[in-house]
């Protein structure tokens, strides 16, 4: 394989093009995935904000029935996996799953530990820090957002159920969204990129092989055939339309062949005279 020009020329080109294309594909896909996941987390945060705004009036009025109805209605929306509202002490106050209500949540559980890792819980989190991903009981990927419900003047000054103004966080909203749509989009992007990369690779290799064959290999074969045939027929003309370098070799070979022929004839004539 490495004895022939084609093998020697195509192996490095193949390694370089394939390797660089794979690296670019992987890095580009990783960058796209990061952007898509960040976008998805942004949307989930917006949705969490909408849920908080929707339940705000019912919370101010301490209307449990209205709150439960809002939570149930939102959880019926396609793509919403679960909606839960926890009290400050970690008890589930409202949930899309009725069986969870009034249950205590472990503060060391995933999604809680981020703020409750130290004695004094963290009260402010960035968008990406509020998000966590996990697989639910049926094995589907879920993106969950845990966002604190902050104390506001209306809450601390309300007549119905007063929270002290020193209490910064009143509870937590936990909303889980199915990742199916995001993963499908990523899978589609991955497939299209892989197809594009394979096509580019095939085109590049085909282009290199075609050019190599046209510019180098075919003229080399012509030259090789000429040298082989001229061993049998010394009057054979050298091939035309060769590239400059090969044409020089062919002409030199033709010249040497003619000189040799002359010398052989002279030697034969001298032999005859003697």
């Amino acid at each position: 394989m490495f004895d022939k020009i084609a093998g020697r020329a195509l192996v490095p080109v193949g390694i370089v093009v394939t390797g660089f294309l794979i690296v670019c594909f992987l890095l580009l896909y990783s960058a796209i995935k990061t952007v898509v996941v960040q976008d998805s987390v942004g949307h989930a945060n917006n949705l969490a904000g909408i849920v908080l705004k929707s339940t705000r009036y019912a919370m101010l009025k301490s209307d449990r029935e209205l709150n439960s109805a809002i939570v149930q209605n939102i959880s019926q929306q396609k793509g919403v996996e679960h909606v839960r509202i926890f009290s400050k002490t970690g008890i589930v106050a409202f949930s899309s799953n009725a069986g969870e209500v009034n249950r205590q949540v472990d503060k060391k559980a995933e999604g809680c530990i981020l703020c409750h890792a130290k004695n004094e819980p963290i009260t402010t989190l960035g968008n990406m820090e509020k998000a966590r991903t996990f697989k639910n009981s049926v094995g589907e990927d879920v993106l969950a957002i845990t966002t604190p419900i902050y104390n506001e003047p209306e809450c601390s000054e309300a007549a119905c159920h007063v929270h002290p103004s020193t209490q910064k966080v009143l509870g937590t909203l936990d909303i889980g969204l199915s990742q199916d749509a995001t993963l499908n989009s990523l899978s589609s992007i991955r497939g299209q990129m892989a197809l594009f990369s394979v096509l580019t690779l095939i085109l590049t290799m085909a282009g290199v092989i075609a050019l190599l064959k046209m510019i180098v290999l075919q003229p080399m074969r012509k030259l090789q055939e000429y040298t082989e045939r001229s061993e049998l027929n010394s009057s054979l003309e050298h091939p035309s339309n060769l590239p400059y370098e090969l044409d020089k070799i062919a002409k030199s070979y033709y010249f040497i062949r003619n000189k040799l022929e002359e010398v052989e004839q002279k030697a034969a004539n001298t032999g005859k005279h003697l």
Partner: protein
Amino acid sequence: MERADNNRSVTAGDTASDTRATQRQGLLDEIKGLRHFSNRGLFALSLFLVVSTLAWRNFPYLPRPEAIVASLGPPPTSQIISMVLILYTFSAIILSLCRMMASIRHRSSFCHVGYLSVFYFFYYLADGLADNYWAVFGAGFTILLMESYRIWTYCNEGIIKKTEQLAYLERTGRLPLDDSPSDI
């Protein structure tokens, strides 16, 4: 007088024989050296596979990234590391191709293992190793395979040339005039 001339010719013959033996041994040593050098790319590739295995296991012998970040400060983001990785891969491939064209003897393979390990380490610190592991692995494998091929072809050509020189030396008792031993 005649005996002195005979002694002189014997001494000259011995010296020529010694020179020939020295040149022969020199060529054999060079062929041996080239054979040894031709494996350099594969050794580097093997070392890279060991580093990649450690990176795949999330560097079990290193402290946690949080501890390193706490003492050294925050690392660059994954996007910046990825951009540098593309630039590095491109430059390394171009350099390797240039060295191949110019037939330069260069021992660069093990440096690349070091650079690639640094990329693994930075991704580890930036919490992006899981997403970008295969990109670093692909880059490393391509660069080191290219370097192995370059070194292997370079050594192969050198070995062929030295073997021809050795055959010429055995046949004629001297090295070819146009080929100096330091060519390769």
